[in-house]
């Protein structure tokens, strides 16, 4: 016997209710509203089906009519029914918006938010006593709308809006004051808005609400956190006789019996602490916060899901907090939650990120993860359905492997290989860009490996994928792919380097060196630096395809203005300068090429840099070019001198940086070793000069002296017309003095 389906029954009932909503009789309309409210409350499926039937615009229409019909001079009975209709229609609309984004959208599209605000609050609030129910219903509904991200932005800059907000906050009703607080939590985003609200004195009222009902307390905590978030100025202005009281009040609430309240209180304190670290420094409070959040993880609902995110914001980037958390077994507790399995994706993500933060700086946390075998669970999460979870798992792996000691221990065990590499390589192809970037981060750490196990990564096609990603339109992906390649090439064996280079190609490398993004340029140069290090034949890579890579390096050095790029570029040239004579000469050619409108070689600018790392790199290049064991060094020294480079190096003899000073000392000794070989030509007398100068010296043009000088110096000859036998010779070096 065919019977009607459940959904068909639903539709029939639904249509029936909607029909009665259009009734001219208020009683019928009111009854239909109540039935509708009861149908949809807490029932997402019913909300959706009524939505499709057009319930929201219908109810919004009813509300609008009812508000217009309000007439205090009319009889009490009508008044009561109209008021009830307003209350029920507001409740229905609020219910549609509660935790149901499609409902929020429909309510906003119908303009119901403005309707409720105007109808229930703006107009009715002055008539508080009789219309408290209306005001309350309106406030409750609006609060639900404002819990959604889609709710309209409240404009605090409008004076009347601020006044209205203050009137909400000052209202006795917990729903109304709660609405005021919700509006702040939802809409206050900028530091200007935070300041405006602070200056309007909302904090005083919010603080008093901390002692109110549960709804008021929770709403107030959220709002206080919103006003202080990332705003040290507002927090510092908070200093006053009231501060201690408010802070103590919130600290007490951390022990509240309701989990959500404990979470909100903790978040509030974290926000204050992060904005202005001078507050809440006491170890006791810090430990209390940590323990509170770790306990809140036990809550099975949304509070437990969010607790780990709060924990992360408490400890992120703060080694002292991470240490405290470690001491109360934070790693173990997070691991215990991970082990439970079948976690809600939001909770899973939060715990992974919390572990990532725990392991971001401390070796003890990483070791604990290793010994607890946390990594196995983290690696499993790399294949999770949720991209947020996959991303969080990658971040956890990246964090844990941010330590050469850890990586070494990984390599010493056998975990390193396929277990961890395979799923990570797979994620390089993920549909989500965020996951790809996170995977690249983890990979770039784990490929810093000093055994032959890098070949596992290459064998699994990792290099091909990295190279592909280095051509991405997304600069973040290009950057992170290059980081991974750079680390992969560090101290790599010849065969590994060759495979990588063949995949990359000289032309791609050259174009990455000239990438529009400076950070990409930097990584490309760092990659080349590693590429040409190692066995001496590695230097040849930079000369592939007619030396386009070397040309690109030289070009970047001449135009770059960022120290990090200049440092990497100088080390590339410095490394190449440790090769054969032809390599050194090629470096010289690059260094002596002038940039447009520049009178001097770029290396002079680097030698004078404020950044000691750059000065060091530049001196190393000079050192390598004038290495005493190389036959062409003396010739290169002359050219460097003529370019003014040698004198700049000499001026650095008292450099404030020890490393630079020591390299300069070695350089000077090296320069002088060439001068020492000159000193054997004893027929000449020299003056010691500190700078380029001119010396009149009588030289017998027929003697061999000039010839021998010319072998070591370039000099300009000016014939003195008056004394034909005298030539003015420019001496360009510090040379040992014989006599003056």
């Amino acid at each position, binding site marked *: 016997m065919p019977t009607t389906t459940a959904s068909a029954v639903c539709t029939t009932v639904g249509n029936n209710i909607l029909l009665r909503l259009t009734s001219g009789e208020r009683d019928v309309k009111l009854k239909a509203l109540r039935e509708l409210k009861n149908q949809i409350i807490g029932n997402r499926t019913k909300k959706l089906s009524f939505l499709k039937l057009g319930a929201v615009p219908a109810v919004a229409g009813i509300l609008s009519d009812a508000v217009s019909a309000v007439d205090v001079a009319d009889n009490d009975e009508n008044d009561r029914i109209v008021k009830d209709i307003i209350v029920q229609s507001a409740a229905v609309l609020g219910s549609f918006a509660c935790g149901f984004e499609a409902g929020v959208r429909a309510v906003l599209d119908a303009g119901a938010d403005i309707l409720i605000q105007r109808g229930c609050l703006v107009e009715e609030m002055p008539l508080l006593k009789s219309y408290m129910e209306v005001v309350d219903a309106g406030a409750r509904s609006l609060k639900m709308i404002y819990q959604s991200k889609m709710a309209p932005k409240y404009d605090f800059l409008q004076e009347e809006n601020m006044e209205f907000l203050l009137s909400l906050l000052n209202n006795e009703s917990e729903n109304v004051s709660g609405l005021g607080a919700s509006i702040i939590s939802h809409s206050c985003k900028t530091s200007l808005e935070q300041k405006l609200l602070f200056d309007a004195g909302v904090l005083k009222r919010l603080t008093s609400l901390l002692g109110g009902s549960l709804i008021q307390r929770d709403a107030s905590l959220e709002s206080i956190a919103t006003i202080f978030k990332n705003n040290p100025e507002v927090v510092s202005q908070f200093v006053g006789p009231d501060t201690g009281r408010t802070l103590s009040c919130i600290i007490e609430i951390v022990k509240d019996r309701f989990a959500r309240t404990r979470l909100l209180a903790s978040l509030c304190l974290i926000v204050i602490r992060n904005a202005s670290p001078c507050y809440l420094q006491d170890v006791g409070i810090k430990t209390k916060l940590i323990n509170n959040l770790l306990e809140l993880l036990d809550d099975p609902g949304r509070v437990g899901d969010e607790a780990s995110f709060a924990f992360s914001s408490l400890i992120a980037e703060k080694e002292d907090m991470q240490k405290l958390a470690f001491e109360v077994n934070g790693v173990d507790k997070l691991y215990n939650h991970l082990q439970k399995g079948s976690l809600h994706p939001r909770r899973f993500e939060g715990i992974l990120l919390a572990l990532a933060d725990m392991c971001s700086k401390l070796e003890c946390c990483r070791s604990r993860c290793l010994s607890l075998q946390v990594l196995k669970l983290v690696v499993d999460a790399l294949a999770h359905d949720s991209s947020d979870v996959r991303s969080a798992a990658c971040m956890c792996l990246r964090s844990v492997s941010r330590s050469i000691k850890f990586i070494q221990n990984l390599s010493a065990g056998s975990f390193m290989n396929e277990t961890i590499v395979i799923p990570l390589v797979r994620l390089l192809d993920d549909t989500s860009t965020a996951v790809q970037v996170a995977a690249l981060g983890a990979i770039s750490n784990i490929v810093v490996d000093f055994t032959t196990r890098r070949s596992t990564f290459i064998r699994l096609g990792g290099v091909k994928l990295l190279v592909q990603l280095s051509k991405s339109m997304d600069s973040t992906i290009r950057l992170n792919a290059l980081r991974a390649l750079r680390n992969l090439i560090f101290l790599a064996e010849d065969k590994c380097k060759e495979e990588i280079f063949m995949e990359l190609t000289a032309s791609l490398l050259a174009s990455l060196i000239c990438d529009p993004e400076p950070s990409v340029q930097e990584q490309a140069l*760092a990659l080349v*630096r590693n590429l040409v290090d190692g066995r001496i034949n590695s230097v040849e890579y930079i000369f592939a395809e007619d030396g386009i890579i070397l040309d690109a390096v030289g070009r970047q050095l001449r135009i770059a203005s960022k120290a990090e790029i200049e440092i990497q570029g100088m080390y590339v040239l410095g490394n190449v300068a440790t090769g054969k004579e032809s390599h050194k000469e090629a470096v010289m050619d690059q260094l002596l090429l002038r940039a447009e409108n520049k009178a001097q070689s770029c290396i002079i600018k680097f030698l004078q840099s404020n950044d000691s790392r750059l000065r060091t790199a530049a001196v190393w290049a000079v050192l390598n070019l004038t290495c005493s064991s190389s036959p062409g060094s003396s010739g290169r020294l002359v050219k460097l001198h003529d370019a003014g480079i040698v004198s700049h190096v000499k001026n650095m003899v008292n450099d404030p940086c020890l490393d630079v000073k020591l390299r300069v000392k070695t350089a000077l000794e090296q320069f002088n070793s060439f001068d020492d070989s000159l000193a054997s030509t004893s027929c000449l007398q020299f003056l010691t000069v500190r700078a380029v100068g001119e010396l009149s010296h009588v030289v017998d043009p027929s003697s061999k002296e000039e010839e021998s000088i010319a072998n070591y110096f370039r000099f300009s000859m000016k014939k003195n017309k008056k004394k034909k036998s005298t030539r003015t010779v420019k001496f360009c070096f510090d040379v040992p003095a014989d006599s003056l």
Partner: protein
Amino acid sequence: MPVRVAESSAPSQVSGAHSEESSPPICSLLTVGQAFSGTQNVSNLQKEEAWRVNVRIQGCDLEHGYLCGTMEALNVPMADTPVVTFWEGEIVDAKNYTFYTGKWEATPEDDIRHWTKFPSFAPLLSRVEADGGKSLDLSNYPYIFMRWKEQYFVNVGTDCGLTIAGFYYVCFSCSDGSINGFYYDPNSSPFQKLELKCANEGRSGFSFSSYELQ
């Protein structure tokens, strides 16, 4: 370097006493990737012996006074292949570590006895005896003092007949990258010397590479 187990006839001396590369290195010759080569004297009363040694720096975390790398011993008589170990270093920076070891069976007297074998330690002695060197500013001193402790064998088993129970007192010269060290192990011959020079591995000059842990 691993030494032979319990072969020494010298009386055992029992008594009581990371990348991340955010700040510039103290010395560019003590950075990741740098190689050093030289010898380790492993002589005892019975015979003179020295092993050729290669060291490479793999990790450097100045903020935490941490260093690590590998050590490879060649021509080890009882081994078929070179023996490679992984070591970790403590940099004496008066912040993370002082001149006093405080572990590994090394007493303060052992510490002073070893550090004073480095000529470059002489100017620091009085301050170290006073407070372990905590008040010293070593950031501009052209020598870096470290302790290197081998953690495990990389390519051989622990039954290879060699021990890595002790540790090295190390002095590194910032100007030329030379390394001197003395091995300390109560059960081995005292003052076995490690002497290394910065190796440029066939290049004319010094080449530098780097990595960055995210």
